[in-house]
């Protein structure tokens, strides 16, 4: 999750055919697309996987049409929403008539939380690597103190206090950042 270049810079490099930049762009936004599909639209894993691959395939094909590289995130969010809605609608058509139709309406609270979570993860990327790792492993990957301790070669008894210190650093980093406008609901040309 180390992020030394901006998403806009990655987009520009992708457009020049830089495959490493493409891999980094996918890595940067993979959790975001996954979360929109599984939490925002509550898609089951097999549908979420199709959406995930379709979104990145469309991004790869259409990157040249993105008019403002800074808008990659709202563009990606809107694209993911559209692909999710299409998936839900096509799924509903294929359902037997006695099955309840699956709603294509997203959970807007979840989508707002996902946008905010991405800001937090962006801020985490600027923390020292040990903090980034420990917070991600404990909260996002749901690893135990013991697993984290073994992976990072740290005494398990120190993990809780390290997490607490890293959360303080993260909060300080976030409070030093400017507020970013809401993105996933924005209207961006795809």
């Amino acid at each position, binding site marked *: 999750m180390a992020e030394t270049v901006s998403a806009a810079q990655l987009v520009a490099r992708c457009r020049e*055919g830089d*495959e490493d930049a*493409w*891999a980094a762009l*996918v*890595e940067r936004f*993979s*959790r*975001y*697309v*996954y*979360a929109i599909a599984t*939490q925002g639209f509550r898609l089951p894993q097999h549908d979420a*996987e199709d959406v*995930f*691959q379709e979104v*990145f*395939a469309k991004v*790869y094909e259409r990157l040249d049409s993105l008019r403002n590289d800074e808008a990659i995130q709202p563009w990606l969010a809107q694209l993911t929403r559209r692909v999710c809605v299409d998936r839900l609608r096509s799924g509903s058509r294929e359902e037997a008539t006695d099955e309840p139709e699956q709603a294509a309406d997203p959970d807007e609270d979840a989508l707002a*939380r*996902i946008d*905010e*979570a*991405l*800001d*937090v*993860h962006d801020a*985490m990327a600027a923390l020292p690597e040990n903090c980034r790792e420990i*917070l*991600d492993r404990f*909260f*996002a*990957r*749901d690893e135990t103190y013991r697993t984290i301790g073994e992976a990072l070669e740290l005494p398990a008894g120190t993990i809780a206090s390290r997490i*607490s210190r890293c*959360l303080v650093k*993260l*909060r300080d980093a*976030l*409070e030093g950042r400017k*507020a*970013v406008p809401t993105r996933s609901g924005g209207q961006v040309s795809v």
Partner: protein
Amino acid sequence: MSAFNEDRLAELIAALPPAPEAWVRAAQELPIARSQFDGIIARAEADAEFRQALIADLEATLAHEGYEPKRPLVDELRKHLADS
């Protein structure tokens, strides 16, 4: 943006779990898949027997020809063969 107390931060970090590694890897390999796709389609257009083999058993034909038959290459080829 709401106040960032520890509980809120924990909730927001947890809100973005990693996507399955295989999905991420497949998406990262799109440029390679596209390059392979172009070569396979060009050959299928020039070689009717190869094209029939792809239609009959896509994965086996790709594997036989030395391609790893995985997403997104397989998806793209299946779609192209169905459309053409």
